[in-house]
Structures are given as structure tokens and as C-alpha cells.
């Protein structure tokens, strides 16, 4: 009946409550728990009560060569995938950013792999990466190098396993970035291009002085998200390599899950996820800082 401020306040509380409770219980609590558990020696299924061990898990984890290798793998993955995927996505977006009749169709086609579950893509790529001359990628490389390529066992070669995962990630992810960059491109006022053209700027100069500055924040966002995604890598590793060969493809999340789940070392796994979160936080902060510095444009 009465729609006064009191009833509005009450309604607001009730309407927020379910989501607030859910977020507190299933994000807030486990988030706090990650820090708390990381300071104990908890093991799942152990009859002993967990004890407080301070920073021992963090010291242990950061001295563990396998975990350090996982960190390095994630960093390498990010260092390659971020620039390659962003560059390809930008090229695709620029290629599609013109009034062609088939533009919506092409945009949809290049976006298509994004909607596939990671597990499906990983399974299909396992066959694409099949060893021997009968493997599709091997055959393609042999063709491209006019027979110069030696058929490789991509997923069991310590030098090729991680690059193989990078390849399939770029393939699957490029469409997502492309769509975002395309939206960014379409947000740049056409008048800016016209003005640059009047000033005698060629295509390259227009790209440098109109397109890139206009895309700056979009690019920063896309780079940040892709870098974070690189540190979240798990599904493809689990399906294709199980971290091998000889830890060449293990990742922070893969190690965290194997510690907590396969070895029941919940505390150690929690410490690893805390390390993971600190990295994500640093990447997010760096992205936001870069956007702020670009502000006022």
C-alpha cells in the first residue's frame, strides 16, 4: 500500500538478501577460508586436528620446484598468448570493420569457437595434434615446409607441449577478443578518421593516431583479461597433458587441484590458490592503473 521510504528500504534489503547471502556463503567464506586454511596443516581425511603452521605452506610452496615451474609455465603462456592473440584479434577486427554484406556472418564464424566448452576443444585438438605423419597438424606443417617438417609428438615433447596448448588457446580465444575490439572500433567516431584524412594522414598514420588511441582502454581490458585467463589455465592441461611431459605444461591451478584433491593436501592447495589470487589482483591493478593513466583522453 504505502510506498514510502521506510517500505522502500525494507524492500531493498529483502531483495538484495538472497544474492548477498549466496555471495557471502559461496564466495566470501571460501575466499577467507583460502587464507585461513593456507596457514594450517589441514589434510582431508586426516584424523589429526589441523594445527596453525604460519607461513610454512607458502614457504614450502614457493620453494617447490614443481610449483615454480608451474608459475613459469603460466608466465610463459601469458607472455606468448597475450600479444599473439591480441594482435590476431586486432587484425581480424580491422579486417571485419567495414560495411560488407557478409560482415555479421564472418563475425559469428570467428566467434564460434568461443562458445565451445574447453573440454570439447581440448579433445578435438588432441587428435589434431596426433603424433606421426598422419596427424593433421604434422601433415599441415609438412605441406607448408615442403617436406622440411619432422613429424612431432606435440603433447609428449617437452619443447612442444606448452606451445601446443598456447596454439589451441589462441585458436579458441581470438574470437572473443575480436568481438570486443570490433565494438571498440565502432565506438571511434568516423569524423576523427575524416579529419585525419583531410590532414593528409595515410592509412598507417590514421591507425597510429586515430585507431590505437581510440582503442586504448579496450586493448588494456582485453590484455588484462587474457593475462588472467592464462593464469587460470586448467581444463586443457587436465585433458591433454596432465601437466607433463616432465612438468612442461603444469600450471598453478593444476598444481593446486592435484595437491588438494589428488594428494588431500588442502592447506597446500589453498596456499597455491592464494598465490594465484595475488597474481590476478596484481594484473587487475595494473590494468586499472593503465586505464587511469589513459584517462582524460
Amino acid at each position: 500500500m504505502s510506498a514510502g521510504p521506510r517500505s522502500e528500504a525494507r524492500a531493498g534489503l529483502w531483495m538484495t538478501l538472497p544474492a548477498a547471502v549466496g555471495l557471502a556463503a559461496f564466495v566470501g567464506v571460501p575466499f577467507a577460508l583460502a587464507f585461513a586454511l593456507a596457514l594450517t596443516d589441514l589434510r582431508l581425511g586426516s584424523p589429526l586436528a589441523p594445527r596453525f603452521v604460519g607461513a610454512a605452506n607458502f614457504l614450502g610452496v614457493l620453494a617447490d620446484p614443481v610449483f615454480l615451474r608451474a608459475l613459469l609455465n603460466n608466465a610463459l603462456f601469458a607472455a606468448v598468448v597475450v600479444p599473439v592473440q591480441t594482435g590476431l584479434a586486432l587484425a581480424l577486427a580491422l579486417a571485419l570493420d567495414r560495411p560488407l554484406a557478409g560482415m555479421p556472418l564472418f563475425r559469428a564464424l570467428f566467434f564460434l569457437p568461443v562458445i565451445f566448452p574447453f573440454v570439447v576443444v581440448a579433445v578435438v585438438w588432441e587428435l589434431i595434434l596426433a603424433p606421426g605423419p598422419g596427424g593433421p597438424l604434422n601433415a599441415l606443417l609438412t605441406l607448408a615446409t615442403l617436406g622440411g617438417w619432422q613429424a612431432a609428438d606435440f603433447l609428449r615433447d617437452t619443447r612442444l607441449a606448452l606451445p601446443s596448448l598456447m596454439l589451441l588457446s589462441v585458436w579458441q580465444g581470438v574470437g572473443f577478443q575480436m568481438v570486443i575490439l570490433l565494438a571498440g572500433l565502432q565506438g571511434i567516431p568516423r569524423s576523427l578518421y575524416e579529419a585525419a584524412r583531410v590532414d593528409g594522414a595515410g592509412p598507417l598514420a590514421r591507425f597510429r593516431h586515430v585507431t590505437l588511441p581510440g582503442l586504448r582502454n579496450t586493448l588494456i581490458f582485453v590484455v588484462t583479461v587474457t593475462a588472467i585467463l592464462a593464469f587460470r589455465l586448467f581444463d586443457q592441461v587436465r585433458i591433454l597433458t596432465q601437466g607433463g611431459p616432465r612438468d612442461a605444461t603444469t600450471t598453478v591451478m593444476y598444481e593446486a587441484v592435484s595437491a588438494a584433491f589428488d594428494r588431500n593436501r588442502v592447506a597446500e592447495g589453498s596456499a597455491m590458490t592464494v598465490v594465484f589470487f595475488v597474481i590476478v589482483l596484481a594484473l587487475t591493478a595494473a590494468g586499472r592503473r593503465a586505464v587511469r593513466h589513459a584517462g582524460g583522453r
Partner: protein
Amino acid sequence: MTGRAQKALWTGALAVAAVGYLAPLLFLVAGAFKPDARVLAEAAGWRAVVPVGASLHNFADVFARVPFERYLMNSLWIAAWVVAGGLAVNGLAGYALARLPFPGRRLVLGAVLALLVVPFEAIAVPLFYQMAWLGLRDTYTVQALPFVANAFSVYLFYSFFLNVPRELEEAARVDGAGPLATYLRVVVPGARPVFATVAVLTFLTQWGSFLWPLMVTVGERVRPLPVGLAAFHTLPPRMWGDIFAFCLMTAAPVLALFLLFQRWFVKGAVDSGIKG
């Protein structure tokens, strides 16, 4: 060169690039229909993407070898709860945060924005422990409940409602409708774009979810499709035609949704890009 010739050339180049780029998916589709032996034998040439001797044999095999229909129903059931529950709960919260002045509003809003930074992977291990402690392993509940409330969905609703003009709502309020009635009768019908976007994003994330169900499911009873596929693809004897048929059927629902609601997928991707 004339403008039209240039356009045709450009379209042709894009078409070639698109076919090359989508070759892995064509390989998947062709392989799902081909006799098993041919999938690997013909993988190295152009025949890889041509379904010679196509049949539904592989699909029948999948159903004969594993309870695929069980996995499918599990996935659908879990996704339905997460999507429906998420739209209800996060929509209400997003609206209240955008419109209704209540004590603690700024605090909740700040908390939601802060939680946007927390990827699921950062809480998976402790959440697993929490759920094991609650005795919820190997249930539908453990797979759906933690994902109903979602900070990003709340944020999408919040920013949508913030930019909707208030006139209609005020008219309803003058007619004596309370906030909840106004929301349900006036706001929701006019907010189809944001509901569609959130529904598509939620479904897509949920459908591909692998890490969490891998951790919390034990047997086949509540196992969803991605975990079923992971198990099936190492199940001897390894038959790639069957595996691809499983893959294709796992992707089919998202593919169908994509064909029907393409613009909401693209909008979802772009919206998720705007938050930065």
C-alpha cells in the same frame, strides 16, 4: 579496381580465412558422422573434413557405451537451476542496488564490485573443503547452489537498471504498487536485453564447467557432460568417431542457442568487456 571488385575480393579472402580457421570444427563434425577407422586414417588430408560414409552409428555407440542421456539431463538440470535462480536472485539485487535506498546499500555494492576480481579458481579448493564438510559432495546442490548468486550478474543488472529511465516505475508507484510489484510488473518486462545477456553468459559458463564438477562428483549419477566427456575420451577402446560424436552432442545445445540468439552472445561478450 572498382569498389565492388574490391569488396568481392575482400569477402573472398575473409571466406577462405574463415574456412581455414574453422577447419578444426569441420573436422569435428565430419568425424562424428564417419566410420571410426576413417577419422584417424583420413585426418591428414582434405578428406578430414568430408564425412564419407556418413551414418549415425557413432552416436548410437555413445549411448550404448555410456549413459549419455544421464549426463545430458544432469547438465541441463544443473544449468536450468543456475540460470533460473541466477536471473531471479541477481536481478532482484541489481535492481535494489540501483534504485532502492536502503541501509548498507553502498557496503553491499562495494562488496559486489570487490568480488568481481575473485576468479572461481581462487576459491575452488576451499569451497571444495567447505562443501565436503557440509556433506554435499556428489549432489546436484553442490554443482548448482554456489553459482546462483553471481557478482558479475548482479553488476550487469545493476548497471543496466541504473541507465533505465524511471518514469514507468514512478507511474506504477503512484498507482500504489510496492517496490517488488513494480519490479515484477513494470521493470522486468522492459529489461529483456539484460535478462537475455545474463542468461546466455550464465548458461555458457555453466555448460562448459569442468574443474568444479570434476572435484565434487564421484560416480555417474550427477556427472555432467564435460566430466563425462573427459572420462569417455580415455575409455578403451578409443574410437575417435564415438569421441567426436560425444563432443558434437555436448556442443550441440550451445550451438543451437548460438544460432537462435546470436546477438545476445555477442552482446554478452561485449558487455563483459565493458566492465573494465
